[in-house]
């Protein structure tokens, strides 16, 4: 599947810091492109025309502009923000998703960015695979379809009733089907159980 490179924007007025970060990012295995802006005003303009996945920002730029940042974050929920922590500011968890300091190792910084990337992708992937049930969920589903009670399923799989209930909830979220008879039809359509096994 084609995957577009991550677009990372570094908002930092110091050339030394920007070039250092850029070197770390470009030499890593992250599939990305990096661009630079110096001020918050440039960010708004850029967001209107280009998709930005991750913003790495000098948090000093956020001082007294909290409202604007919040507005941007609301308007572009897929944008992740990593703050450069100079150790002089208190953490602002609302404004950034994650932060690193100038003294962190290159590996640590990349690792931090990778975490952000995964966070970004997971909702879309979950949606794609929405009805991909786990092995355990399939086992619980098979039990349900065969008319077993929660307790019987719990005993057969050697798990607690509480866990069975949790699996059932997940099955409903993933399939969109809630009733037992509806799940039976689902299981047959998906060939999870053989139709011969079911009495009509």
């Amino acid at each position, binding site marked *: 599947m084609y995957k577009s490179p991550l677009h990372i924007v570094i908002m930092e007025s110091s050339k030394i810091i920007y070039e250092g970060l850029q070197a770390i990012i470009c030499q890593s295995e992250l599939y990305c492109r990096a661009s630079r802006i110096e001020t918050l005003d440039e960010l708004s303009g850029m967001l209107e025309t280009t998709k930005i996945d991750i913003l790495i920002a000098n948090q000093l730029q956020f001082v007294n502009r909290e409202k604007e940042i919040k507005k941007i974050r609301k308007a572009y929920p897929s944008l992740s923000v990593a703050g450069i922590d100079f150790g002089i500011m208190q953490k602002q968890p609302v404004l950034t998703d994650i932060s690193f300091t100038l003294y962190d190792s290159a590996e640590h910084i990349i690792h931090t960015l990778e975490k952000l990337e995964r966070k970004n992708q997971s909702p879309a992937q979950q949606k794609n695979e929405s009805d991909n049930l786990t092995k355990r969920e399939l086992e619980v589903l098979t039990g349900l379809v065969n008319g077993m009670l929660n307790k019987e399923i719990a005993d057969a799989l050697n798990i607690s009733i509480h866990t069975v209930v949790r699996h059932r909830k997940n099955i409903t979220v993933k399939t*969109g*089907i*809630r*009733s037992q*008879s*509806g799940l039976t*039809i689902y299981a047959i*359509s998906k060939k999870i159980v053989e139709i011969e096994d*079911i009495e*009509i």
Partner: protein
Amino acid sequence: MQMADLIDANPNLLLMLQHFNIDFRVSDQTVMQLCENQGISENLFVSIANLYNGFGTKGHQPFSSEDMLQVIEFLKSSHNYYRWDKYPQISSYIRQLQESHSGKELKLLEKFFNEYFTEVLDHLDYEDNVAFPYFITLLDSEKSEVESEVYSSKEYSDHHTDIELKLQDLKNLLLKYVKIEGDLDLRRKLFFALYELEYDLYIHSLIEESILIPSGISIEREQNV
């Protein structure tokens, strides 16, 4: 505002007129004239029309006992629409599908629907025979002679969700999972019927939750004082 214009903007209001037992030939009557001619309070009529148009009722407007009796008649009429019109229609579409496609999945789907239909009928009967008479007694009795241990307004609201959830299951099964080759005409008719039913059921429960139950509870409170 003329009623005919409102219908033009949202034809679903025809269903509302039917539930109020009002003829569709509304001529050029305004809403106010229509209400007056039909002996329905404007407050009630507009509140329900708002629900059909996607707005909530404005706050808790006080409804009179007369209003409440009309609400109950309205709900009974929508029960008949489910019982004699919508569900049989859906049932016949599923039957036709099942007959023209081999495979046990559709047989199971038909069984699923028939069981669901039976549950719905039970529920409708329960409301007609237990819940509504309770509300009517509540409205009639000036003194507190209602046997509130037998039944109460809150209990009533727990009953609906199941009906809507299984309908959701049916739609999801048809939209996402059960494989049927071709027959798009019949399947489209089935989907439209399901969505029409879903829409009216939704409004139905809104009326119960935002008009009938709050009014019932406030009468219960008054009588308990």
